[in-house]
C-alpha cells in the first residue's frame, strides 16, 4: 500500500511547517479547472499557519508517494502568488498552486 506524505516548508530557510509523516493533518487536494491545484487543510490557526501566511510567497509544497519495491515519487507544487489564505469560520487553510512538477529523486545524478 502506498504511503503519502504532505509537506509544506520554507523555500529559502527550509523551515518545515507541515509534515504529515511526523504530525498528521486532515488535508485534501483538488485539481482546478484552470490547471491549478488547491490544497485544503483543516487546522487550527497555529504558529505554523501564521508562518505559512507570512511566507506565502516562499513556500515549497510537496506530496511524496512511497510504495514498497518502487522509488519514491515526489511532486512539487509551485505556489507562485497563491492565494494562500486562512478561513477562520471554516477552520481551514487553503494553498493554491499554479502548477506542479513530478520527479523521482533516484533518477538524478545516476
Amino acid at each position, binding site marked *: 500500500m502506498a504511503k503519502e506524505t504532505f509537506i509544506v516548508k520554507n523555500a529559502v530557510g527550509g523551515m518545515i511547517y507541515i509534515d504529515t509523516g511526523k504530525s498528521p493533518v486532515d488535508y485534501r487536494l483538488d485539481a482546478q479547472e484552470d490547471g491549478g491545484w488547491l490544497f485544503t487543510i483543516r487546522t487550527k490557526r497555529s504558529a505554523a499557519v501564521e508562518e505559512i501566511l507570512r511566507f506565502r510567497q516562499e513556500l515549497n509544497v510537496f506530496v511524496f508517494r512511497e510504495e514498497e519495491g518502487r522509488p519514491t515519487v515526489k511532486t512539487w507544487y509551485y505556489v507562485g502568488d497563491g492565494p494562500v489564505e486562512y478561513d477562520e469560520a471554516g477552520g481551514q487553510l487553503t494553498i493554491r498552486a499554479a502548477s506542479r*512538477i513530478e*520527479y523521482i529523486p533516484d533518477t538524478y*545524478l545516476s
Partner: protein
Amino acid sequence: MIKVYAAEDRHRTDLGWLVSRPSFQFGAYVDPDNTGFGVLRVFNDDFVAPGKGFGAHPHSDMEIVSVILKGAIRHEDNLGNIEITRVGEVQRITAGSGVIHAEYNPSETEELNLLQMWFMPRERGLAPSYETSRYDPAKLTNALHPIVTPTGSEEAASIQQDMTIYLGRLEAGREIAYRQESGRRLFLFVIEGSIQANGVRLGERDSARISDVADLTLSTPEAPAFVLLIDLP
C-alpha cells in the same frame, strides 16, 4: 555606510560532507534580523567533500548564482541540463516557475568550494533556465571584471535582475575605484587576502554591506587579494 561582517562571526553548519558558512539566514541558521541585503537573500560559502552533494530538490522565483572557487560541481536538472562547472566558470539558474535540480562534487579526491548566491528576480513566474559562463582570469588583474550582468555576454552570465557581480584580483600596492549610483547597494566579499575599503579593513572571507557611499576605493597595501563585489538594488 560600510558595515563589516567578520568571517568568524558567520554561522557554521557542519554536516560532515558539507561545511557551509552562510552570511544570511539559511537552513539551521535562523536570524530574523539577518534575512538579506536588498535583493540578495542567500550568500553561502560552501565546502563539499569529494563525491558528495545535494540530491534532487526544487527552486522557484530565485536567481541562483554559483561561483566555483575550488574543484568542480556537477549539475543536473529537469530541463535536461547536465553540466560540470569548474574554477573560472559561473553557473546561473533562473528558477522562475520551478526547476528541479541536483548538484554534487564529481571529484573522487578534491574538495569543492563554491559561493552560492540567491537573488530575488525582477519578476515572479519567469520561465526557468540554466546557464554556465566562463570568464578570462587574466581580466581580473587590478580590475573589477563583470561575471554576471543583466544582459550577459560571451564572458558573463545573464541574470533577471538589475545587478552586476564582479571579480577582481588586486596586486599588492594597487587600487581599484568603483562609483556607486545613488540608492543602490554594494556587497563586498574578500575571497583571499585582505583589503582596505575606503580605509576600512576586511580580512579573508570578511564581507561588507555598503550603502550611501558614492565612491569606493579598494586597496591592498601589502599583499595581493581576491574579491567579489555585487552592485545591486
